[in-house]
């Protein structure tokens, strides 16, 4: 009976080898897929056991921090509540909800780059401690922007054109990231309008048209165009504000007084390919290069008014004349318009906007310093200087006068986009600009949604000026 016994034992060796093979399948070969499986609660629990790092403002104000939960887990709290919610977002691990920097900087906050003490702590079975993320955000500017919006839906974006560092990013309606439940428009919204709104740019877009016209060499600031009103654009009459006929005017004057018919003709003469080329350099047609989750970014571009779909770049169907004055289906974010002003302010060089400044590990060492990166060279420094002077004139003499700050020279461009049905008088007021005009340090874009006939110069420009003043006084 010995031979069968050996065979039976041999069979058990085979069966046990099978068990080891299958164990290695789950522990090694299929392990990653199993760990990433959405049904796997362990992944979430392991995340909950990580002491996520803090998110801080530039001045060290804590914007997000971990709090102790049950069984060595951690929860999250946002001390500044709704003030920073749209840029900070939230990370509720148990429900799998995450947004904003909490999502996009998740690797840092979980401690992918950890200091030596964190690694030793982990080896000893201790808690994994994440790194702290310092942002570029300025709580004072943020608070002032919120205060000046005074509850009106709209957005304020302030950034440093030299680096792309975002100083303030406020949108209303906002929400409190400590309480996600019961947040419904119109009083509460998780939408970050600064980067997600589908706004009509109106006359602020004339900056893009001006840059394309001058930098391409097709126009100079003294080129004269007839500013009569109305004119036919794509077969439809286009009027100036108040149907005023300006007669022949040069481009500087046209920008100062925001003459629609002149810029529509300029855009048509510059042509779709060149206009599209400059728009792409400014960042249109793509999600802005900001360190926020892609879902929270909108690519500004022209949309068909009939189908509601985006036009392919330089599509022959688009009404380039109206696009040239910020109408014609062009939808933009306040951030995109801030980027337009920023490119002019920084000598034609557009810096990628960013919220993350540096990552500091639990030992206090800076493990990552975000370096300013060039998004594109939109125009020559000469063009930038010329356009900046034209924008200075807008504030000195034209529609942007309410942005004047006395001692500080402000450059900018207003916008008052008609957005309601014909004759309804609903407008989207805008102001984008920078200061000081000679050596710009701060760019601000302000827009207010759906006002009753108010103008960019009167409602948006003063907000922008106040924020510029505050930020310049802090850094001056």
């Amino acid at each position, binding site marked *: 009976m010995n031979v069968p016994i050996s065979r039976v*034992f041999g*069979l058990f060796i085979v069966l046990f080898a099978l*068990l080891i093979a*299958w*164990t*290695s399948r789950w522990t090694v070969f299929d392990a990653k897929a199993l760990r990433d499986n959405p049904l796997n609660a*362990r992944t979430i629990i392991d995340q*909950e*056991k990580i002491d996520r790092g803090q998110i801080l403002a530039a001045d060290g104000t804590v914007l997000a921090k971990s709090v102790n939960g049950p069984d060595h887990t951690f929860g999250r709290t946002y001390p500044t509540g709704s003030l920073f919610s749209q840029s900070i977002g939230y990370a509720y691990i148990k429900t799998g909800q995450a947004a904003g920097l909490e999502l996009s900087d998740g690797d840092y906050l979980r401690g992918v780059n950890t200091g030596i003490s964190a690694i030793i702590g982990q080896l000893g079975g201790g808690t994994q401690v994440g790194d702290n993320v310092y942002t570029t955000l300025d709580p004072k500017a943020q608070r002032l922007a919120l205060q000046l919006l005074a509850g009106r839906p709209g957005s304020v974006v302030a950034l440093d054109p030299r680096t792309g560092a975002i100083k303030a990013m406020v949108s209303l309606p906002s929400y409190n990231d400590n309480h996600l439940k019961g947040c419904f428009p119109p009083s509460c919204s998780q939408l970050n309008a600064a980067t997600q709104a589908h706004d009509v740019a109106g006359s602020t877009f004339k900056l893009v048209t001006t840059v394309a016209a001058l930098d391409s060499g097709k126009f100079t600031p003294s080129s004269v165009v007839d500013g009569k009103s109305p004119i036919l654009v794509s077969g439809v009459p286009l009027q100036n504000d108040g149907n005023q006929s300006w007669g022949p005017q040069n481009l500087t004057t046209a920008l100062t007084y925001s003459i629609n018919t002149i810029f529509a003709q300029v855009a048509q003469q510059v042509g779709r390919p060149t206009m599209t080329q400059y728009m792409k350099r400014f960042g249109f047609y793509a999600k802005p290069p900001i360190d926020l989750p892609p879902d929270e970014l909108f690519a500004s571009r022209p949309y068909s008014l009939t189908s509601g779909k985006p036009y392919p770049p330089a599509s022959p169907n688009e009404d380039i004349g109206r696009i040239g004055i910020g109408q014609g289906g062009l939808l933009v974010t306040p951030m995109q318009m801030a980027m337009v002003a920023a490119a002019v302010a920084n000598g034609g060089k557009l810096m990628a906007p960013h919220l993350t400044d540096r990552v500091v590990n639990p030992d206090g060492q800076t493990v990552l310093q975000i370096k300013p990166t060039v998004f594109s060279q939109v125009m020559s420094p000469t063009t930038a200087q010329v356009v900046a002077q034209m924008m200075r004139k807008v504030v000195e003499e034209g529609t942007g006068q309410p942005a004047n700050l006395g001692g500080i020279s402000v450059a900018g461009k207003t916008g008052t986009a008609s957005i309601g049905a014909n004759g309804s008088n609903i407008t989207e007021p805008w102001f984008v600009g920078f200061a000081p005009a000679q050596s710009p340090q701060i760019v601000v874009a302000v827009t207010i949604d759906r006002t009753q006939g108010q103008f960019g110069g009167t409602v948006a420009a003063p907000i922008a000026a106040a924020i510029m003043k505050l930020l310049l006084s802090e850094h001056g």
Partner: protein
Amino acid sequence: MTARNRELLGLIPASLLVTAGFAGVFIQRSNALSNVSLTYGAIFLGLCLAGHLVIRATLPYADPYMFPLAALLASFGIVMIYRIDTTLARQQAQWFVLGLILFSATIVGFRDYRKLERYRYTIAVVSLVLLVLPRFPGIGYQANGAYLGIHIPGVFVFQPTEFAKIGFVIFLASYLRDTRQVLVQGARRILGVTIPPIKHFGPVIVIWGLAMGILILLHDVGSSLMFYGALLSTLYVATSRFSFVVVGLIAFGVGAWYIGSHVPHINARVQEWLHPLSPALYHGTQGGTSSYQQANALFAQAAGGMFGQGFGEATLTIPGTKDYLIPAPSTDMIYAVITDELGLFGAAAVLITYLMLIARGFKTAVLARDSFSTLLATGLSSVLALQVFVIVGGVTRVIPLTGVTLPFISYGGSSIIANLVLLALLLLVSDRARRPA
């Protein structure tokens, strides 16, 4: 060195493991190495030593490796259980005391274990009754859809299959010793397949049929596989007829396919086995059944990886609750916890330890001088090996998951006592086999 001294030295790994293990749990819980842990370890080692002394006094020639290997597994088990639930570990230690008493009683009471042969039909009937008990209303209870236990409120919970498997093997060994010659010689060969005479083979078929039937009634696929596998391996060793195994496997395959597609509970288990990560099955929306346990067994193993998360490091409960992430971590699912904490290497080490213990069992079967002893040792070793295969195979998704314990490691009074009795019988056979003539 005598066999018994070798056995005593063999207990060193177990004692080191217990000491290191308890120390590990305590350090992990940031406590000082308190007296309690040392007491635990000492009591457990004392029990092992007591077992050794019983063997030393009664079975001087018995295999010197079996007891230390079982002790190693049991030490590992108690450390693991202690890490999961300290209360259960204390109860497990108490079960060990009872188990060792029955272990000693078996050795003393059945010095001549061959007298068991006389009671083979009694043993068969008792085993059958044990198997049916969980289906009796009032005392039987259902766990995970299978009728596996007897529950007398306030007194005990008891899993009769653990004991029935031993009775079943004793009956098989005894019956096949009597009939192995006739099964082969009286057989006719048709188309190269040996057809044994029905008269002699009948009772085997009947026992098999009854066992299978009851197990289908009890909804326990795992035990069914265990019993049937033990039958086939003992039959093969008794008759050397591979054709019996082939026919038996085909019969099992057809039966399993039929049951798998017709018995709803078992069909559900098969579906969970095939698609454990299907969200619908996972959330149990289909007919009240769920692949939650199977899926989480896999997740636990994935969390362990090659080297494991470290002893005491695995996530067992859902934070903020006392709910276990994997149900039954200390019993059916303990292999998943082991893999989670000690990784592929730790799990493989456990399996290899089992294989070494089983190897000693089969070695005993080879050394035995009479057919009953050979068949008994074969049957006991096979049923032990199959039990490990059934539960580990279930946890690792080699076969559908059914709840049986991991011998010597899992928490459970019935399991500990029955497996210690099984070990006692193997040692008895071994002592007789190795006794100088």
